[in-house]
């Protein structure tokens, strides 16, 4: 904690959890999916307090604003529905009501593209802070405070060694790493939280290993 966590953030009201946190979940989910990657439809499922009192708090406007990459203090959040429509972005909100299995202020954001879907689960944990708990069925624990490298791969030995060698060669420290496997399809997801942005020109080096299916880099939320 620092002084600017107390005197701040500068944000669009009315609620740090239901508005500022909601916008950050949207923005971070979009960064995980890929800021430049197109999609046909983004679907947002709202749960618990997000579903029950989201409208009055502008939670829907804020999440969509975040998906449009607006920051928590960007007044365009108020007009995010109109702006999305002007940009030709299709979006749909589903108010899912109460579900005790997910967080108090939780949402699932699904990007649909060409019949494929990609989803991220996020929750607003108070004071505008967020937690991303799941990416496409893999449990993760991301707070947006580190640059992240995400690797989808076949569940075979040597993936971590291969990737961590390339990270080391780029002179970047790994703050934390998480590995999750999905045994039903024999695939895995590795998340590397880094101390610096992973250079995009090194991604082809990672993909030289034919067991690696997809690599994504996610910038940190600069305001956190």
């Amino acid at each position: 904690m620092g002084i600017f966590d107390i005197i701040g953030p500068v944000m669009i009201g009315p609620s740090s959890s239901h508005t500022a946190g909601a916008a950050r979940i949207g923005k971070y989910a979009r960064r995980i999916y890929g800021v430049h990657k197109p999609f046909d439809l983004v679907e947002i499922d709202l749960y618990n307090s997000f579903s029950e009192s989201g409208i009055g708090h502008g939670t829907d406007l804020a999440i969509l604003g975040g998906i449009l990459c607006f920051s928590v203090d960007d007044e365009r959040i108020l007009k995010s529905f109109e702006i999305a429509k002007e940009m030709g972005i299709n979006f749909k909100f589903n108010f899912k009501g109460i579900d005790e299995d997910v967080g108090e202020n939780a949402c699932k954001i699904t990007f649909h593209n060409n019949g494929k879907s990609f989803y991220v689960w996020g929750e607003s944990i108070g004071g505008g802070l967020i937690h991303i708990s799941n990416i496409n069925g893999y449990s993760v624990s991301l707070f947006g405070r580190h640059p992240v490298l995400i690797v989808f791969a076949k569940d075979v030995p040597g993936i971590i060694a291969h990737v961590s060698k390339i990270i080391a060669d780029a002179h970047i420290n790994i703050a934390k790493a998480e590995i999750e496997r999905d045994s039903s399809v024999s695939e895995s997801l590795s998340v590397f939280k880094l101390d610096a942005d992973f250079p995009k020109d090194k991604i082809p080096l990672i993909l030289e290993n034919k067991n690696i299916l997809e690599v994504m880099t996610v910038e940190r939320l600069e305001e956190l």
Partner: protein
Amino acid sequence: MKIKFRSFSELKEKAMGSNLPLGKFLIQYEALNEGKDPDFVISRMDRTLTAMEESIIKGLKGRNTSKTGFVDGWAYRVQEFSKDFNFHLLSEEFTEVIKNTLAVSEMNACMGRIVAAPTAGSCGVLPGSLLTVAKLKGVERNKIIEALFVAGGIGEAFQMLASLSGARHGCQAEVGAASSMAAGAIVSLFSDDIDAVESASAFALKNVLGLVCDPIGGFVEIPCIKRNVMGAVNAIASAQMALSGIRTLIPLDEVIIAMKRIGEKLPEELRETGLGGVAGTETAKLLLKKFKEKGS
């Protein structure tokens, strides 16, 4: 080397050891801990101050109405009424405090741009009290920036000893904390005496111990916005007492701990759930029902 403190008394001791006024000491603290230049953190606070000032100006431009329809141009009414009739119960300055606080809290409820200080629900208190006093007294900008660091330092003590969440400790930890932070910050505009800062903060918090968090429907509108006005007025009164030389017999840290203990005893209905207190009244339930029917 980083500076650490775990309570207001530790902050006071370290600031006094540095021979710097509290605000200047906290600028050093923030710069060292974030690995930045003092100029960097000063200019960041300058931008934060600008955002606060803009929230007052925008909030007074017209009638603000919220999505629920509860907020209905209150700040604007105070502004127009006092102008039209030149009527002030106390003075123009006092009306200014009320009007500016309402303006910022209304901006928050109406999805305007505000500074959460320490929370969005209590965002009217610091601009409404500290900024209004500073402007009326012609205080220099750099001094106001330092006072915001003082407010932040006091807020950190709350965070370390208790919490700034209405859901945990009720409104005493939101508007109460904001009022306490503002009281100390106002004193720091006119005095470098850290005991005076501490006393003002302690007075303001003692005055609102036990205050529950009971927003209708969970929306930061009723009773929150008018409670911000209470917080601003309470901050100024507390600062006036401390500047007059009255000193708190109970240290601020102990008052914060008392707040925490009270917060822990508050039932869940009175901690931001929108169930008890004002939110639990028959009329509140009716108002909420009307809004929900309109929305669907």
